């Protein structure tokens, strides 16, 4: 029988004690939760300790899918490096911490990576918010090298912070002229309301206008908006020809669906979304995103054009079969490049101190990677990359255009 204890004194004591018990239990659970782990190399060098590589990425929380892809790629690359004899005769020890899609958790965990574990380099962070939260901990207070792997809005020019993902100049310079030729001149820019779409659209708008197109409207929505009736109506009644989308999850799925249901693609409209990759294909039914154009440094179909990409893709799929894919939109390809460029830099520097490695990384090059070769632009801390424009056909990407050689990021 349930106690009727709402207003009695005993009740409030009981509930307070219960409350404290629950609170203690919960804080204990939080404090002891696993938020990091170490992968020790299979061999050790008797003379010197292993080189420590820190990975800070979102293993849990809203973008856990991307974070786990990053962690997988790091494990694969480090295993390969160790199997090939390590760097400077020393094996690599991988320390992975969870940034949990939450900046305050991240700052504490990354701090531990720097202060306690004293890693030689940190790679990671996916969103710009995350990069901004942890870069100071790593670069300024931590005096450690930081490599950021994700495509982003650009303008990150902090010393000792190297970016290995594509930036607007690389993605938009390729896709906007293609869209005007293969879609039309009347653009709509529906966007999520945060830093990346704002900066991306500023660049895109100029490019559209310079190429003879026009922006019918540019609009920003709360990140969790899932109802886009008003936007769709504007697109349909203003005869928009190209929807250049930077709405992100969770809104992007319902938005594309509603757009399809309103008959946008039926009347010949073209969808474009630069960050769309293979892991985003599951968000919608194939017919809802038929003809969608994306622009990134790697798509799975590139494996047919580039043997090195094919080898990397096969190795990844063998080691990590399942739902966590090696794709460009999740920063996994940037993670691969970051680790490989850093390896080249350490080998050239011959030592691990930040000054020397940064100086070597400044002009590091790799001849192979997902999507092809890559090289740092000296003094700019950003990468020249191959860029591919791909279009969704029957639920898969097909390459529609590729850059002639490596594209300059034009940053910093």
């Amino acid at each position, binding site marked *: *029988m*349930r*106690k*009727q*204890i*709402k207003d009695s004194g005993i*009740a409030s004591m*009981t*509930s307070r004690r*219960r*409350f404290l018990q*629950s*609170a203690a239990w*919960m804080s204990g659970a939080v404090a002891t939760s696993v938020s990091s782990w170490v992968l020790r190399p299979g061999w050790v060098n008797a003379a010197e300790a292993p080189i420590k590589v820190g990975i800070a990425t979102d293993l*849990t929380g*809203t*973008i*856990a*899918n*991307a974070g*786990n892809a990053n962690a997988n790629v790091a494990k694969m690359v480090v295993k390969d490096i160790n199997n090939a004899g390590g760097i400077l005769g020393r094996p690599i020890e991988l320390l992975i911490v969870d940034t949990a899609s939450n900046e305050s958790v991240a700052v504490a965990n990354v701090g531990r990576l720097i202060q306690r574990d004293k890693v030689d380099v940190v790679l990671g962070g996916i969103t710009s918010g995350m990069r901004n939260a942890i870069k100071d901990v790593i670069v300024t207070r931590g005096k450690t090298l930081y490599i950021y792997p994700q495509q982003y809005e650009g303008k990150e020019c902090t010393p000792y912070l190297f970016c290995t993902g594509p930036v607007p100049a690389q993605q938009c310079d390729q896709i906007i002229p293609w869209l005007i030729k293969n879609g039309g001149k009347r653009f709509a820019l529906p966007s999520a*309301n945060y830093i990346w779409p704002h900066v991306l659209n500023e660049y895109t708008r100029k490019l559209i206008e310079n190429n003879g197109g026009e922006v019918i409207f540019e*609009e*920003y*929505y*709360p990140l*969790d*908006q*899932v*109802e*886009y*009736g*008003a*936007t*769709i*109506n504007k697109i349909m*009644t203003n005869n928009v020809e190209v929807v250049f989308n930077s709405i992100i*999850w*969770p809104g992007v*799925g*319902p938005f594309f*669906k*509603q757009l399809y*249901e*309103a*008959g946008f693609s039926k009347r010949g409209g073209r969808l474009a979304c630069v960050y769309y990759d293979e*892991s*985003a294909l*599951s*968000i*919608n*039914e194939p017919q*809802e995103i038929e003809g969608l154009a994306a622009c990134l440094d790697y798509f799975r179909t590139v494996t047919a054009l580039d043997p090195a990409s094919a080898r990397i893709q096969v190795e990844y799929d063998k080691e990590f079969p*399942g*739902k*966590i894919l090696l794709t460009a939109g999740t920063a996994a390809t940037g993670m691969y490049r970051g680790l490989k460029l850093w390896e080249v830099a350490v080998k050239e520097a011959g030592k691990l101190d930040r000054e020397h490695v940064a100086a070597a990384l400044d002009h590091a090059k790799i001849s192979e990677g997902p999507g092809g070769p890559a090289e740092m632009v000296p003094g700019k801390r950003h990468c020249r990359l191959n860029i591919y424009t791909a279009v969704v056909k029957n639920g898969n990407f097909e390459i529609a255009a590729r850059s002639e050689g490596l594209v300059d990021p034009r940053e910093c």
Partner: protein
Amino acid sequence: MESALSATFEILNFGAIMVLVVLGLGIIAGMMGIFNFAHGEFVLLGAYATYLVYSFGLPVWLGMLGAPLVVGAIGFVLERLVIRHFYAAPIVAMLGTYALGLIIRESVRSLIGGLYITVPEPIVGSLTVGDVQLSRWRFAIVVITTAVVLASYLLLTRTSLGLRVRAAIENPSLARASGISTNALYAITFTFGAALAGLAGALVVPVFSLSADLGVRFLIEGFLAIMLGGIGSFEGSMAGAAVVGVLSAALPWVVAPALADVLIFVIAIVFVKFKPRGLIAERRT
């Protein structure tokens, strides 16, 4: 004219979705005094169950029929094992259900690999009215919601079970003295609320795609709806849900979308200031 038609349809549709999601939340909050912070995750479980059935190659509608039963059963087990210990301590209930929700959400996230997964509509295609295309499935949601709300209302107001449930809420001691097992009624009510959440998840998953955070967005707006409608009455939470749903779909038509989100809360706060007991105040003394 076309704009007005599609605006009306979208607003009506989102209003219906909000009502559907809030229905179970409102019944549990109103009848049991428990703010179920895991409600969004019950919605998620309904969506996940539907996806699971579909991924086995079975028709989607079968998943939609099964989802309320499965989620209801999960709700029943949770009520017996966990929730019933919380009735005397509403604050702990909030923390406890929040923790439950977190466990469910992160479990589903790892099961689906953190991806966003599409589930097709059981009724595909659009109705063409003039130049406007209206989604058949969204139309079906409005119809089903109306039927479910009506059935729930009749169940609570016109049946002897409903009478006993209301008696147990109104005065638990007297109800027990009259030979009503409040213990069993609480279990039934919670199971029913959970099943409604499961149904809501099953019906909306084709519209929003399956993702671990599917329920999170609705939770905040759901509580806003209950606050607006008034705690303790079925009609109140339904009216609150309709208002919140209609506002969040309607405001982006007239003001900048980023502003609309904030405006809903501002309107709600101003409203509650002047009518603190909600749209339809509980008549209990």
